[in-house]
Structures are given as structure tokens and as C-alpha cells.
């Protein structure tokens, strides 16, 4: 089904069963998720706000894709819409999301499901067993009146009906052990556990059915640094053991550089830069990425004044005519005011940037901060006016 003939009704009315025309078994695809020209709106008509605009993403198996951006950049909307969890007034207005799920019987084959057109019945099959999600606030994600064990029990009962009660119980204990928690936590209520423990339980729940893809929506934002470090190491460890692919959403770019293989930076609903994690850190190409990287005070080196990004985050209902970042950009040119740049590949196929500075007919040379080659020592950047 192409984006042109797409019928909004089909998305907003999940109760109506539809035969999906894209379910095919074939050789296992190297991508676990392919998102093409995906757009999401809030509301319809004159008050419509486009929260995600024409996003294209590909995620390879067992890789980590990081999505970075400040609040309102559309990163959470993107993943909720992708998994069809977005509620009204959110509407998917264009695009396809193909999830290639591994066949349980034959690991070398995979089945493609278009999540945008899939019926509720098909979604139910795919959700949790093939794609699971860890939400930001673990306190509100766990049912406060249920013991933790019940949550595990219900998932397994629904998706693995042939398991016995004893098997379910031992699987739950096994899952808790995987995230470093003792079995006795199963009889606890969420309020009896600390924030870090609750988040571990969310991760264990997400992995309960051995999914192909795990989506993490700011799983560590509410935690302090020490707990965050523990959760991140746990994730490293689990991923090397089970080989699931992961989408990790956060506003903390330096955390992503450590964790992700590839990073996309979103601004006002669009991808402004896409690159390998190290490349993005060593050699950012978009002024916004550079600003984000410079927003974190460093742990070492001379103390100097940093400026971050001037101005305030964009208002989606009142975006500039040209480049969305134009009002805040330190390198803006006349062209940026009227023409929006598209995400264009530069240097290699995996790298893209949406900025006129990198177009061949740019009137000014690319500033030195945005033309660094990968792997210079970042600390050798010229010190600005020093303080202290």
C-alpha cells in the first residue's frame, strides 16, 4: 500500500479487521525495521500540527539506533506511531513501517509486517513477542495494585498459552535474575521498589518473549547518574547475550554515543543528522548537533564558558518557512530563511545531514567546527575565553 492511497480511517479504526497485503515469508532480511517517509500529525484540518515529518529509518538486526533531540522534537511520537500505540488526536498521515520478524520455527527466515496497515489482531501477535517497549516512567508503567509477579504471569499466559503455571513462575524468576534482581521481588508491589529496580523490572518484562526489537523511551531520565550507569551496563550485557535490536530515545547525546551504533538527531519532527555514533560525536555536521554536543559541561579540561544553543525549542504550530533551525542557527545564510534543506547523504551512504552549509553550491565555506574529520582529539579544540 503506497502512501498516496493511504486511508486514514484504517488507522483510526482498529476494530475493523483488514487483511494486510504485505505479510510475506522470505529470506531473513538484514533489517529488523524499515520506516519510509513516515509522517504523523496531531489533529486534522486547520489546527493540524505535524509532529513527525517524512522520516526514513532503517535498523539492522542486533544494532542500537539512538534517537536524540529535545522535548517536542517528535522522538517519542515517532516510536509510538511506529508501533501504532499513538492515540487520537495523533494520526499517521503517510508512510510505511515494515517490521521483519524472525520466524520462530526457522531462524533464517523472516516475515514482513507493515505495522501501519496491520489489523489489531496482527498487531497483537507482533507486539511484545517481536517488538516490546520500555517506557520512561516505570512507576506509572507498572500497575500499582498488582504484585510484580502478576505482570510477568499475564504476559506469558497471553502469549505462551502452552506454558504451565510452574513454568511461567520459573521463567519470571529467570528474567529477574537476568537483570540482576532477586526472585523475592516477584511478590513485591511497585511502590516497595526503588526507581532503578522498577526500571530493571520493565526491562525484564520487555525481554520476556525474546523480541527482535526493544524500544526504550528515555528509560534512565528519571534516575540519577549512578543508577543510570548500572542500567546501561545491564543493557550492554543483555544485548550481547540475546542480540536484540534496540531503539534508544534520550535527550542525553553523550549517553547515546556510548550506547548506540547509529544516531539520528531530530529537530522539530525531522531528522537533521544521521551518522554512526562515534562519527557524530567526533565530527558533527549539523549546527544543531554541534550545539547539543556543546550543551554538556565537560568533566575535564580547562573550565570555559559554553553557550549551548541560543533561543528556545521550536513551536511546532508556528515553524519558520525555511529551515526549522534557522532562528537559532549560528551559521545561518540568506537561503536558509526561505528554503528548507532535505536530508542528503554526505561522505558515505550511512551519513546524512539536512543543512545548506554542506550543499555543493553553498556560498560560504563549511565552518571549521562542522568540517572536522572523524577522530581528532576533541579536547584539543581551541579554548574559548577561559574562566576561573
Amino acid at each position, binding site marked *: 500500500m503506497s502512501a498516496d492511497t493511504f486511508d486514514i480511517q484504517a488507522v483510526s479504526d482498529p476494530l475493523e479487521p483488514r487483511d494486510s497485503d504485505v505479510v510475506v515469508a522470505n529470506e531473513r532480511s538484514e533489517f529488523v525495521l524499515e520506516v519510509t517517509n513516515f509522517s504523523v500529525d496531531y489533529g486534522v484540518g486547520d489546527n493540524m500540527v505535524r509532529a513527525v515529518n517524512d522520516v526514513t529509518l532503517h535498523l539492522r538486526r542486533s544494532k542500537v539506533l539512538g534517537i536524540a533531540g529535545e522535548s517536542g522534537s517528535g522522538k517519542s511520537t515517532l516510536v509510538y506511531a511506529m508501533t501504532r500505540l499513538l492515540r487520537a488526536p495523533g494520526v499517521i498521515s503517510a508512510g510505511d513501517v515494515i517490521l521483519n520478524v524472525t520466524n520462530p520455527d526457522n531462524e533464517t527466515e523472516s516475515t514482513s509486517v507493515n505495522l501501519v496497515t496491520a489489523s489489531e489482531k496482527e498487531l497483537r501477535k507482533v507486539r511484545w513477542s517481536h517488538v516490546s517497549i520500555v517506557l520512561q516512567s516505570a512507576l506509572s508503567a507498572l500497575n500499582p495494585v498488582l504484585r510484580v509477579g502478576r505482570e510477568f504471569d499475564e504476559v506469558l499466559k497471553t502469549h505462551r498459552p502452552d506454558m504451565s503455571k510452574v513454568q511461567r513462575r520459573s521463567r519470571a524468576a529467570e528474567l529477574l535474575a537476568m537483570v540482576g534482581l532477586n526472585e523475592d521481588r516477584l511478590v513485591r508491589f511497585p511502590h516497595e521498589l526503588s526507581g532503578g529496580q522498577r526500571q530493571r523490572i520493565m526491562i525484564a518484562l520487555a525481554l520476556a518473549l525474546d523480541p527482535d526489537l526493544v524500544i526504550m523511551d528515555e528509560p534512565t531520565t528519571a534516575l540519577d*547518574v549512578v543508577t543510570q550507569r*548500572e542500567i546501561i*551496563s545491564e543493557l550492554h550485557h543483555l544485548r550481547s547475550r540475546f542480540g536484540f535490536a534496540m531503539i534508544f530515545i534520550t*535527550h542525553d547525546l553523550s*549517553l547515546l554515543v*556510548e550506547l548506540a551504533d547509529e544516531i539520528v538527531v531530530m529537530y522539530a519532527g525531522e531528522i537533521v543528522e544521521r551518522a554512526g555514533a562515534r562519527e557524530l560525536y567526533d565530527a558533527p555536521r549539523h549546527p544543531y548537533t554541534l550545539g547539543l554536543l556543546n*550543551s554538556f*559541561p565537560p*568533566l575535564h579540561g580547562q573550565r570555559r564558558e559554553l553557550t549551548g544553543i541560543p533561543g528556545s525549542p521550536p513551536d511546532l504550530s508556528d515553524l519558520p518557512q525555511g529551515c526549522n533551525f534557522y532562528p537559532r542557527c549560528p551559521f545561518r545564510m540568506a537561503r536558509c530563511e526561505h528554503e528548507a534543506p532535505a536530508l542528503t547523504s554526505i561522505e558515505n551512504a550511512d551519513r546524512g545531514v539536512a543543512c545548506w552549509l554542506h550543499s555543493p553550491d553553498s556560498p560560504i565555506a563549511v565552518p571549521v567546527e562542522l568540517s572536522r574529520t572523524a577522530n581528532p582529539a576533541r579536547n584539543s579544540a581551541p579554548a574559548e575565553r577561559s574562566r576561573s
Partner: protein
Amino acid sequence: MTDATLSPSVLSARHLTRHFTTRVPGRFLNAKRVVRAVDDVSLDLFEGRVTAVVGESGSGKSVLARMLARIVTPTSGELVLEGTPIPVRSKRTLDYAAMVQLVLQDPYASVNPVHRIRHALERPLLIHGANKSDVEEQAKTALARVSLEPPERFLDRYAHELSGGQLQRVSIARALCVKPDVLLADEPISMLDVSVRLGILNLLRGLCDSEHLAILYITHDIASARYIADETIVMYAGQIVERSHGTTLVDEPTHPYTQLLISSVPDPSDPTSQDPTKSEHATFAVADVGCRFAPRCPSAMDVCRVEDPPDFIVGEGHTSHCWLHASEPRAAVEMALPQRRREGEPTTT
């Protein structure tokens, strides 16, 4: 920048302690348990200096700020404001509030959503006895001080019309409009977007440098403390475990807890921080006897489990609450300290 050149402190806390008593459920005869939220903390806030308090959740840093603002009454200890001891058990006076102001963590929750920004700024002015005719002028000045310009544009807006960063500036402006000498900022940036955090930090630093405010900056982000603070204090379980001037604390941490905090910060420029084996399972267990950090400490010794260490002086203005620095086992420190030692420039404080 040494203590000798400083004017006397604006606000001093001496042996501040706050214990909370909780009931242990299910125990015989309502057994009580005492939580030592803040234990024997002394600190000084100086004119034109930023003092940062760093610690994870539950370390007592917010209770400390609230005691300094006299919202929470200390169990014991005393406060000295500009040389005058304050009877801490008495009620907070308006005069005290005019000198010491608190800025809270969540700007969305601390600005009244049903009133205009004008109300948030003018009300404290009226309470503190300003003339009705010139409150508007003063409110405008306060907004201009936090770089919300032009002020007229903001006065008649509602909280929901402003972004988080702008609201936090309003919150700071509200604290500033009664012309305090001391500003207590309790995690002022943790709820804000990354791109506007630096703006708030630079604003606080600027207020401190140009208007000689004494600022207490509370945070769990040790990198931001390093960025802004003149003195950094690390708290663990209600106690000060390490304190030092300038960037020394982060550059040369001596307490195992400080080292743990620093190594937890994501730092892509440091390849060792990506080592996933560093996971140690820490629970927030606090020892009743001995050093409070001993149950989590990677270099805990026998003495740590028996006796609470005193503060050892490990450098100029640099103290560490750890037995590793008792004169004998000093060598052990170097062994426990491989992580973030760096040959950066020597920091002069």
C-alpha cells in the same frame, strides 16, 4: 581565590542535623526508626561565590536546602546569617525570607498556572512591603535581570505560554525581586531541556559574578557542578564526604563515592567509561555503624565497618571523609584511584 581574601560568609550552617522518625510497619509496639537525612553538616556561603552540593537521590541535599531556607526545622545545629545567629527553632521571619530565597526544581509546578506572570512577581514584592505604584517597574527590572526581554511581553502571559527554560527564569526572577543576598537553587536544571540548561547555569554564574549573590547550587550532575561552582561539596546519606575548591574535586577525587559519581557520568571522550564490566550492584544501603558508604565501597577496610571516619585534609581546602586518607594507608588511595586521573592543567584555586 583563597579563603583569606574572602569577606565573611553571608550564610553559615553549623552542625545542621535533621532526623526523621518513621514507624517500622509490623513491628512490636510501633518500633521507631530514625532516618538521618542530614547529619552534622557545616557549610558557608560567600558573597559572589557558587557553592555546589552534589549527591544522588536520598543523599539529603534537598533537605539541606530547605533547612537553609528555614522551611524545614533542623533537629539540631545553628544558622548564622551575616554574623547574627538565627534561632532555628523559631518561625521563619519575613526578614529572613527577604535575605534567603529558594528556587525549586520543577518550574511547571512552582509557578501558579491560573495567574499571569505579573502576579508571580508582584505578589512577593507587595508582601515584602513594596510600594504599589512601583511594583510593575520592579517586576520588569527582575525579568530583565534574568534576560527575559522585553519584560512587557512576559508580564501578561500565563505559565503555559512559556517554555520550561523561560519559566525557570521567571522562577529565578521571582526569587531575585525581593533582593536577597543568598539564592538557594535546588536542582534548577534537571527538569529542563538540554539546550536551555547551559543558559540557566550561565545566568546563575552571571548573577553571582555581577551582583555578588551567594548561591547554593544543588545537583546530581557533577559535571555541571564542575562547570559553575567555586566550591563543591559531595554528600552521601546525609553527610558531607568530600569538599574542595574549583575543579579540584572532579579532577582529583579522593573519596570512593566521588569517584563512583564521576565514573557514572557518560563521557564519550573517555574510552574507559564504555567498559561495561564496571557494573557493580549498588543498593542504597546505609551502615548504622562505621562509614555510611562502607557497604557499597569497593575499597572498604575493616576499620570502615567499625568507626565513622573523620574528615582528613588531603589538600588545600580539600577534605575527604574516608579512612583511606588516614596517614597510614595513604598508598591504598592511589591503587583505588585509577579511573579518571588525568594530566590536565593544574587547577589553581
